[in-house]
C-alpha cells in the first residue's frame, strides 16, 4: 500500500483503487431480446381512479434466446416441469371449485419458466427456498404434485401434516428445501446462512431464493443481500418482477425501472432476463450458481414477466389493464418454449402430445391419492412445538467443521473497556 502525503503531514494512508475493485467492478448484464416500453400509471377518469398503461404494447414476440448451456434433453426436461407446474395448478383450481381446498390457491401462471428453469440449475447439495408462486421449483426439487395438492387440502399426509398450507414446506434431509414464511424477504438471510453453514464445513454451495417486485421493498431484502455480499456467500437471489404486488404495480414499489440495478449498491453482479424465456432464466441461474460454488458470492437476477392471474384465486385482478394481460399472453412461457422445441425439431407433435398425456396421467394419479387421503387427527395439533429428546439428531450436513478450532492457548480475559458507563 502506498502512502501519500497530504496537508496533515502524511499521516493518512490511501488505499489504491485496485485494492477495492473486486467489490465495485460489476455491471448489469441484460440477456433479453426485447425491452418492453410501457408503464402503468394511476389515472383519474369519470370520478374514478384506475390503473392505465402508457407506451408501446404492439412489439412482436421475440424468439427464445439460444442457451449457452442447455442441451436438447435438458430443454425437454425443463419443458416437462413447466407443463407439470401449470397443469397441476389447473388441477388445484378444479379442486378448489369442488370444495376440496382449505383456504386459497396461489398461482405461478406465466412464471413457470422462472420457477422451473432456475431450480433446474441447482445441484443436489445446493439449497432452495421457494416463495408462494414457486410451486414449479418444488417439483423440480423432487416434491410431487401430490405433496403440493395435499398441502392445499390440509391433509394428514401433507409435508407439514396439515400444519401449514401451499408451498410452505421443506426438507432438510434429502431435497435441501427451506420452507418459506408468509412475511416477504425473510428467506434471503436464511439462504445466506445456509451458504455460510456449508462454507464452515468446507463447501461452497448455491443457495437460491426468490423475492418479488413488492417483496424487494422490505428491509430484510436489504439486510439479507448485504449480509451475503459482505461475506461473499453463495446466494442466488431471483427477483421475480411480475409487475404486480397484489394490486399495486411495480411502478409504485420502486423508483428504478430495472430492479437488478440495485445489485450495484451491494457490490454484486446483477442480471436481467426475460422471465418468460426458460433458456435465459436457466443461463443466468446457472452462471450465478457456478459463481456461488466458486465461493465468489451472491448474484441478483431480475426476471421480468407478468403474474397472469390475481394475487390468489379469490382475486379476479380487475385492476390490471386488459392490454397488459394481452401483451404477456402472447409471451406465454410454455407456448414459447413449445414453439422453440418444435421448430428445432427437438420434439415432434406426436411426442409433444404423448408428453402432455403423461403429465396429465401423473397428475390424475396424484390428485386421486390426495383426495382419498385422510385429514389429520385433531390431537396432533398439540405435538412437535419443541424438538424434544430423541426427535431429531442435529447432524452436520456437509461432514465436518473445517473452520479453525483453536489458535492460541491464552484464554484469560484482558482488562476491558466494556460499556462501563452502564453500571
Amino acid at each position, binding site marked *: 500500500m502506498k502512502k501519500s502525503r497530504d496537508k496533515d503531514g502524511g499521516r493518512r494512508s490511501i488505499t489504491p483503487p485496485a485494492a477495492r475493485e473486486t467489490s465495485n467492478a460489476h455491471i448489469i448484464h441484460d440477456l433479453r431480446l426485447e425491452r418492453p416500453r410501457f408503464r402503468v400509471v394511476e389515472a383519474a377518469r369519470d370520478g374514478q381512479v384506475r390503473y392505465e398503461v402508457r407506451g408501446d404494447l404492439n412489439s412482436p414476440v421475440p424468439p427464445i434466446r439460444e442457451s449457452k448451456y442447455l442441451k436438447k434433453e435438458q430443454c425437454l426436461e425443463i419443458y416437462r416441469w413447466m407443463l407439470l407446474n401449470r397443469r397441476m395448478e389447473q388441477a388445484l383450481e378444479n379442486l378448489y371449485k369442488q370444495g376440496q381446498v382449505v383456504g386459497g390457491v396461489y398461482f405461478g401462471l406465466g412464471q413457470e419458466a422462472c420457477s422451473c428453469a432456475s431450480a433446474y440449475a441447482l445441484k443436489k447439495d445446493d439449497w432452495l427456498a421457494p416463495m408462494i408462486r414457486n410451486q414449479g421449483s418444488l417439483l423440480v426439487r423432487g416434491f410431487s404434485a401430490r405433496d403440493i395438492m395435499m398441502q392445499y387440502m390440509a391433509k394428514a399426509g401433507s409435508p407439514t401434516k396439515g400444519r401449514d398450507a401451499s408451498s410452505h414446506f421443506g426438507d432438510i434431509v434429502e431435497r435441501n428445501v427451506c420452507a418459506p414464511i408468509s412475511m416477504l424477504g425473510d428467506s434471503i438471510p436464511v439462504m445466506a446462512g445456509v451458504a455460510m453453514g456449508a462454507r*464452515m464445513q468446507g463447501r461452497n454451495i448455491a443457495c437460491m431464493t426468490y423475492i418479488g417486485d413488492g417483496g424487494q421493498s422490505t428491509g430484510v431484502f436489504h439486510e439479507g443481500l448485504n449480509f451475503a455480499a459482505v461475506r461473499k456467500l453463495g446466494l442466488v437471489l431471483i427477483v421475480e418482477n411480475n409487475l404486480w404486488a397484489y394490486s399495486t404495480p411495480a411502478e409504485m414499489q420502486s423508483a428504478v425501472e430495472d430492479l437488478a440495478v440495485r445489485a450495484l449498491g451491494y457490490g454484486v453482479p446483477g442480471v436481467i432476463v426475460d422471465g418468460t424465456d426458460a433458456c435465459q432464466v436457466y443461463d443466468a441461474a446457472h452462471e450465478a450458481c457456478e459463481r456461488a460454488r466458486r465461493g465468489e458470492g451472491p448474484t441478483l437476477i431480475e426476471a421480468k414477466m407478468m403474474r397472469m392471474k390475481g394475487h390468489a384465486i379469490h382475486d379476479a385482478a380487475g385492476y390490471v389493464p386488459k392490454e397488459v394481460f394481452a401483451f404477456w399472453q402472447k409471451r406465454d412461457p410454455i407456448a414459447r418454449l413449445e414453439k422453440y422445441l418444435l421448430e428445432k425439431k427437438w420434439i415432434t407433435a406426436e411426442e409433444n402430445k404423448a408428453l402432455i398425456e403423461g403429465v396429465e396421467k401423473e397428475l390424475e394419479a396424484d390428485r386421486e391419492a390426495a383426495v382419498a387421503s385422510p385429514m389429520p387427527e385433531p390431537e396432533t395439533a398439540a405435538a412437535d412445538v419443541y424438538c424434544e429428546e430423541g426427535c431429531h439428531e442435529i447432524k452436520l450436513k456437509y461432514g465436518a467443521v473445517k473452520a479453525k478450532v483453536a489458535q492460541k492457548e491464552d484464554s484469560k480475559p484482558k482488562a476491558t473497556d466494556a460499556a462501563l458507563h452502564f453500571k
Partner: protein
Amino acid sequence: MPAITYLEAIRQGLWEEMERDPAVFCLGEDIGIYGGAFKVTDGFIHHFGPERVMDTPIAESAIVGAAFGAALTGMRPVVEFQFIDFIGCAFNQITNTLAKSHYRWGAPAPVVLRGPSGGNVHGGPFHSQNPEMYFAHTPGIKVVAPATAYDAKGLIKSAVRDNNPVLFLEHKYLYRRIKEELPAEEFTVPLGKARVARAGRDLSIVTYAAMVHVALEAAETLAKEGIDVEVVDLRTLVPLDREAIAETVRKTNKAIVLHEDTKTGGLAGEITAVIHEECFDALDGPVVRITALDTPVPFSPPLEEFFLPEVGDVVREARKLKAY
C-alpha cells in the same frame, strides 16, 4: 478456585461449548476483535478464529435469519444482541421463522439468542428493557434468565446443546456485580428447572434474574421481624417449572410474584394463574404481584428507581401478606 463474575461465567460456558463442539459458533455486532460491547466474547476471535467469531453488519433480521440458515446445515449458532432491546429488530425472524419451523416442517432451530437485558443501570428506554414476554408468549421458543454465576454458566451450556431456539437473557446489572466460586469440573444446569434460593416457611417469593437478589435482601430484613421467606428462582421462564411453583405455595400457603418486567402481560400474571390452577386450595391469601410500572424504562436515576421494584416494596408487601 477464585470467584468469578456472572459475565465471566457466561464467557467460560460459551468457551467450553465452542471447544467441545466445533459446530458451535458466535455471530453478532462487534463481538470479534472488540470482544463485544460488554466483553462476553473477549479473546474468542484469537482462539477460535474469525470464522467462528463473526462480526456482522448491523442487521438483526439478517443475523438471526443467517443463524437459522446455518442451523439448517447442522451448525449451532449463538447470536449476540449488543443490547437485548435490539431483539425487536429481529422479531419477525424469531417469532415466525425460528419459533415455528419445527412445528410447521420438522426443521429444528438450535439457535441461542443471547444478550444483556434489564435495567437499574440508567440505560434509558432502549438499553434497559426486559423483552421476555414477547417471546415467552410465542410457542416454540425457550426463555432462560439466570440470577447467579453458577446458573449462568450451567444454563448457557444447556442452551447451546438444546435443539430449540433459546432466548438467553443476561441481566446486565449482574454482569460484574456478583461473584461466585464455581466447581472446577464441568457442569450444566437443566432448562426448565427452578431452584429454591432460600428456604422458608411463612410465604414464598417467586422471581427470576436480578430480582432474585432483591428478594433475598428483603428476606434478610423480614427474617429479623420473624417472617421466614422462601425465595424460588425460576431460572427458566419457558418451559415454566409449574411443579416448583406449586410445591413452594403448598409449603408456605402465601405467594408474592416479583419481576423487573412491567406488570400488564408480565410473567407474574401467568404464574398467578398457574398457582390457581395447580394449588388454589393451598392459598391462605391473595397472590401479590410486585413489578415495574407499566411505562417505558425511564432514564433519569430518580425516575428509574421509582419505576423498578425495590427491597422496600417487597418488605412492605410481605408484611401485609403475612398479616392477611
